[in-house]
């Protein structure tokens, strides 16, 4: 078996997600190559070469792959995939955008968001917003898979894989990058944070998210939100936790003014410890919370910040 992993990177740095995908690849077994595609990615390739278990880093450094648009990226992976039994990527918005396109070019199914490897062709994945776990077996020769990073512990560093250039350049006259508006934050990434504190519709407005930020600063936490809070315009979309937002599994998740709809639970119920602060004692969030505090958040949050 031989596995190709699409490396996740942002702002010139290797993203933490890739180390989790390498762990999934190790569970499958076989040689593991990673593909770094982008423009000016030498430093990312070097970082990827250090991931434990990686045999080779293949680098496609070309303006064609800047911004990782789906059309050139899938053409590139399609070109390389012939050498492999498995192609893996993180179930990030990049992996989700690119990999199904690769699968269809190869006329194979994609297995989305695996959380466990049973054997090289059999995987577990959540369905119905995580309310059921399916075990699926692929009957295709090439397995194209996205990996839910919370399902696999990151591999450590300490490897020293060789780095080689890939010359293939995809033409693309169909799509052009126009702009990106990225959220700026000094806080840890939602997916990687050990503590996450999220606010829901109960926060009332975007300004009140400051109440969460004070606590987040003290705990080194990332700040998340429910869809209702995002929809209401309190905070930007990249903060949404849930079935159709980000999936998180921190050591500590604090849900504030969030009712606990199944779509929200889908994104956080694998957290180690869950705290809920809600003024409605019947709120479903209390059914999954290890510690529930029935209180008005406008009283509880300032007090919590002060006592931490």
């Amino acid at each position: 078996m031989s596995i190709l992993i699409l490396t996740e990177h942002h702002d010139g740095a290797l993203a933490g997600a890739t180390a989790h995908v390498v762990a999934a690849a190790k569970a499958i077994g076989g040689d593991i190559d990673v593909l770094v595609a982008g423009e000016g990615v030498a430093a990312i390739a070097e970082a990827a070469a250090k991931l434990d278990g990686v045999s080779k880093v293949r680098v496609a450094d070309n303006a064609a792959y800047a911004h990782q648009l789906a059309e050139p990226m899938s053409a590139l992976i399609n070109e390389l995939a012939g050498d492999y039994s498995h192609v893996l990527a993180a179930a990030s918005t990049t992996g989700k955008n690119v990999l199904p396109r690769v699968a269809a070019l190869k006329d194979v199914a994609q297995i989305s968001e695996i959380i466990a490897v049973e054997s090289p062709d059999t995987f577990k994945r959540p369905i119905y917003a995580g309310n059921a776990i399916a075990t699926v077996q692929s009957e295709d020769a090439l397995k194209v898979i996205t990996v839910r990073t919370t399902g696999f512990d990151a591999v450590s560093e300490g490897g020293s894989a060789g780095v080689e250039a890939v010359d293939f350049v995809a033409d693309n006259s169909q799509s052009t990058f126009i702009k990106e508006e990225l959220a700026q934050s000094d806080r840890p990434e939602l997916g990687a944070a050990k503590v996450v504190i999220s606010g829901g519709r109960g926060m009332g407005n975007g300004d009140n998210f400051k109440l969460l930020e004070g606590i987040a600063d003290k705990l080194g936490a990332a700040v998340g939100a429910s869809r209702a809070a995002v929809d209401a315009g309190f905070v930007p979309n990249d903060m949404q936790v849930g079935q159709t937002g980000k999936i998180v599994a921190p050591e500590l998740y604090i849900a504030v003014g969030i009712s606990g709809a199944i779509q929200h639970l889908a994104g956080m119920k694998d957290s180690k410890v869950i705290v809920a602060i809600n003024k409605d004692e019947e709120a479903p969030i209390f059914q999954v919370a290890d510690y529930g505090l029935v209180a008005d958040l406008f009283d509880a949050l300032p007090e919590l910040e002060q006592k931490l």
Partner: protein
Amino acid sequence: MKILVAVKRVIDYNVKIRVKPDHSDVDLTNVKMAMNPFCEIAVEEAVRLKEKGVATEVVAVTVGPKAAQEQLRTALALGADRAIHVESDERVESLGAAKALAKLVEEEQPGLVILGKQAIDTDNNQTGQMLAALTGLPQGTFASEVAVDGDKVQVTREIDGGLQTVELSLPAIVTTDLRLNEPRYAKLPDIMKAKKKPLDVKSPADLGVEMATRTKLLKVEPPAERQGGIKVGSVDELVDKLKNEAKVIS
């Protein structure tokens, strides 16, 4: 410009599913079914483009069992002009659906195809991207804004770090995210009118597509249940528990 919209019949998003006791699948007997929420957003976007004069015709398509015609009628009530049902009683995978849709794209020659980003049953998030590959068309996935301008479309995409805008040549494939629009409700007179709108039924064989499944569903289990915890009486007690019992803060 013609717009093709793909809609899928799925379990209603409010229903909490149960797994069958023999762990063969989830139990859908007597469960309320509905149009996938992301597909409602896709239909709404297509209808708005028609109302703005950008599109001239909206064609709704589904691949699935006979009962899925209910969701096509819903799309017609919401403003689609006609519908195509590719009837299949077997389990349809995203690749199979994409193959059937690709054939319809060839037949219908739409300027834009709009799909949901994800079906809330399988949570696959694949079909639009696969359709784009099979038709050789560009894709704008997870759209929160779609602006057609001449022979191009600008799509603002919800990505992990924020928003990204790409420009695609038409025809193109777009998949919808939640904030693209807020779908309308069908009004009773429109529901009545929808019954008279044309609905074509085709088989995969009519389209010349092979939709055999590529994966086997070996088992479906309920997830590990969380043990319900305790209620704390005060912020002090909460901080104490987190420090000394759960040991997740210091």
